[in-house]
């Protein structure tokens, strides 16, 4: 399905909040499927508060905090050496957001699946699923929906566009007896620093009330459903559907 995020520089992040806390003994069980799948060099780091981070070779990072499993993609610039010359940067090719998201979901699925299937997994549950898009946009060529959003935020000042913004807007989108869907909308730009462009963060979340029932059976299906719902909402933002009533 067509998604505007494939036409800009956008990176995915997946967050899964698990309950109760992830114990360290689970790490070994969690690691195996990820390493088997990616066969790559992995940098393992330990941060404060028991956060463990695995940097995979293909740009993905797996971060385990006591309550969250986070998979994130970042573009990495490498350096090329040639004798007698300065090192030159090699800029990676931009890849479609939906393709990166599919890979991130596959890592997430392997890790959380292993957690739930482990001996302590029957005690583990899923409290929240998040699908995030982090996009760096050109303010002079914004997708129409984001252009409408920034114009709307600047509406009280009539005809004048906002000079700068650093905002997070959390909106509830939908809810039923089992969960609430919501999205954090992050918007950062400053006309005085045009080189930084406009950073848009769309952090779509499904929060369960209080946790996902039968997570072992249902997690994969929920992850797929969350992906579809999040992508549909991101597309709605890009097309400006939120502003349909305000169109000319």
């Amino acid at each position, binding site marked *: 399905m*067509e998604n*505007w995020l494939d*036409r800009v520089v956008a990176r995915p992040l997946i967050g899964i909040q698990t309950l109760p806390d992830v114990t*360290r*003994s689970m*790490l*070994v069980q969690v*690691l*195996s499927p990820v*390493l*088997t799948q*990616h*066969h*790559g*060099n*992995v*940098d*393992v*780091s*330990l*941060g*404060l508060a028991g956060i463990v*981070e695995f940097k995979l*070779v*293909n740009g993905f*990072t797996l971060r385990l905090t006591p309550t*969250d499993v*986070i998979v994130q993609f970042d573009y990495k610039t490498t350096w090329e050496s040639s004798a007698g010359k300065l090192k030159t940067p090699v800029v*990676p*090719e931009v*890849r479609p957001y939906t393709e990166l998201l599919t890979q991130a979901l596959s890592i997430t699925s392997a890790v959380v699946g292993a957690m739930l299937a482990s001996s302590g997994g029957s005690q583990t549950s899923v*409290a*929240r699923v*998040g699908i*995030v898009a*982090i996009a760096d946009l050109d303010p002079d060529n914004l*997708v*129409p*929906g984001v252009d*409408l959003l920034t114009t709307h935020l600047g509406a009280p000042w009539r005809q004048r566009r906002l000079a700068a913004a650093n905002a997070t807007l*959390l909106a*509830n989108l939908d809810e039923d007896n089992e969960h609430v869907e919501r999205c*954090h909308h*992050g918007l*950062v730009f400053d006309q005085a620093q045009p080189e*930084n462009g406009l*950073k848009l*963060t769309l*952090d779509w979340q499904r*929060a369960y*009330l209080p946790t996902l029932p039968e997570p072992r059976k249902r997690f994969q299906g929920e992850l797929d459903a969350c992906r579809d719902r999040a992508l549909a909402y991101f597309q709605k933002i*890009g*097309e*400006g*559907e939120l502003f*349909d*009533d*305000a*169109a*000319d």
Partner: protein
Amino acid sequence: MTLPISTATWVLPADTGASTDDRGHSASSEWVRLRSASSSGTTPDDLASVESIGSLSGQVSKGLRGSSDRARCENDAQTTSWYRSAPEASNREALSSTLEAERNRLVQRKYDGGGLTPRETNRLRYLEWTLDQLEASDYEPSLERLANLAHTIREFKASISELTTDLRRAAERPSRSRRQK
């Protein structure tokens, strides 16, 4: 409505433009590198601080030994343009013609059929933006080649003018054989 659970976001300050180191960590956090398959040094003290890290790091290095070259090839394949260019180009073409047909229908209705609804107006704007992006990505390789060519020509011009200067200087300087005469 008050939400029953935390409204926290997973996105780190690093992703919203705060200062970070080269690993993407925020400047305030402290990290200990436990094991890297690509770098050899991990001190015993680093490892001793974590229970079960012995088996963890053992698994990491066992799982990785001898596989790094293959991993690098796979990674390259995913990011090299030739790997995806042919199917992507045809997908792009198919997508362009579908979107263009929809755009044309909306434009025709806008002028002949009594205008568009607000939803259709937004959709039309979106279609035009997407078609522009697709067109730009079609021209990108040619523009890149053109920029490279311009760079080569500039370099060539600079070396020609350097050569001309050297030749002129050499011609103005009396040669040793002429001086001897």
